[in-house]
């Protein structure tokens, strides 16, 4: 599904801010995002991310910010400020709380996933991040942009990697209660490349509609 590329070709590009203390990971995520037709800015820490956004902690107000950011993708485990702490700061800021935040982590820990989603993260991706993950996030972002102004949160995270199963992504636009209930087990993924853990990383909450 090339939705991201097709839609963006006719509009301005999504600008993604990627935050990761690992140089290797920054290089990889930058490439994945560029291939997905995004403008990318990479920074190595939460503090730098906030500086880039123009959120000066001390003043608690907006500073200079050159480019609008449409999406933030951040690593979870970083020295200094973790991705989780960064997420909280963004969601608690009146200026930036609408920016979707995606967390990336090498560890698939349920309580971690729960807390991130509860704090308002759009998705929780388990590393290593693949192109299919990024494309899906882009699609979610675009569709979310089209429904801006509504209070809907997209929580059907069960997107199959195999594009041949595109029909499974149709149940993505129903509204759900704002606080997540206990996680339901994901149904077995039919995509060849998914493992049960892989499905779990996305299928935290299930929309029964």
């Amino acid at each position, binding site marked *: 599904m090339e939705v991201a590329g097709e839609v963006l070709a006719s509009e301005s590009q999504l600008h993604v801010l990627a935050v990761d203390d690992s140089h*290797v990971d920054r290089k*990889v995520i930058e*490439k994945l995002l560029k291939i997905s037709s995004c403008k990318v800015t990479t920074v190595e820490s939460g503090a730098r991310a906030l500086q880039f956004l123009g959120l000066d902690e001390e003043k608690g107000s907006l500073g200079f910010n050159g480019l609008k950011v449409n999406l933030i993708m951040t690593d979870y485990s970083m020295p200094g400020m973790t991705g989780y702490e960064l997420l909280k700061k963004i969601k608690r800021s009146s200026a930036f709380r609408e920016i979707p935040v995606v967390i990336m982590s090498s560890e698939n820990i349920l309580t971690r996933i729960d807390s991130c989603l509860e704090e308002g993260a759009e998705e929780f991706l388990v590393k290593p991040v693949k192109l299919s993950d990024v494309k899906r996030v882009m699609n979610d972002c675009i569709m979310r942009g089209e429904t801006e102004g509504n209070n809907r949160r997209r929580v059907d995270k069960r997107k199959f990697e195999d594009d041949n199963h595109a029909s499974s992504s149709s149940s993505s636009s129903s509204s759900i209660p704002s606080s997540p209930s206990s996680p339901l087990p994901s149904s077995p993924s039919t995509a060849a490349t998914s493992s049960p853990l892989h499905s779990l990383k996305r299928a935290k909450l299930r929309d029964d509609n």
Partner: protein
Amino acid sequence: MDFVNQLQRKFIDYSSSLHREGIVDDQFTQLRKLEDENSPHFVMEVASLFFEDCEKLINNMAIALEQKQGVDFKQIDECIHQLKGSSSSIGAMRVKNACIAFRSFSDAQNREGCLRCLQQLSHEYSLLKNKLQTLFLLEQQIVAAGGSIPRVH
């Protein structure tokens, strides 16, 4: 043209052997797929960053394990975590597995075990670096001879 074909054949065979030996896994293939005319040396560039990371972290761990006044296992753990992350991102499977083994000794605060693991890790890193540099050299030879790098799946 025959010379280029030979080089390409060599490249394919060598690449396959890296996978077979578990030196690299599917993530490496995924990174390969991201290469295009705009960034024909992407994997090589990521590998360079990875080698830098590895050397720095291995060195830091060696120093930490040498501390007479007591080993800072928290620091060791942090290094292992970073190395495990990068090796996973580039698809360096054996290095990643060596990190996983290392972690259990670090958790147990077993200095002797850690020293052995560090040695194993250094060995896997050297092996990886050697093999990847051979692969990248083949790439460069193919391009220099006017050929294109075959896509391996």
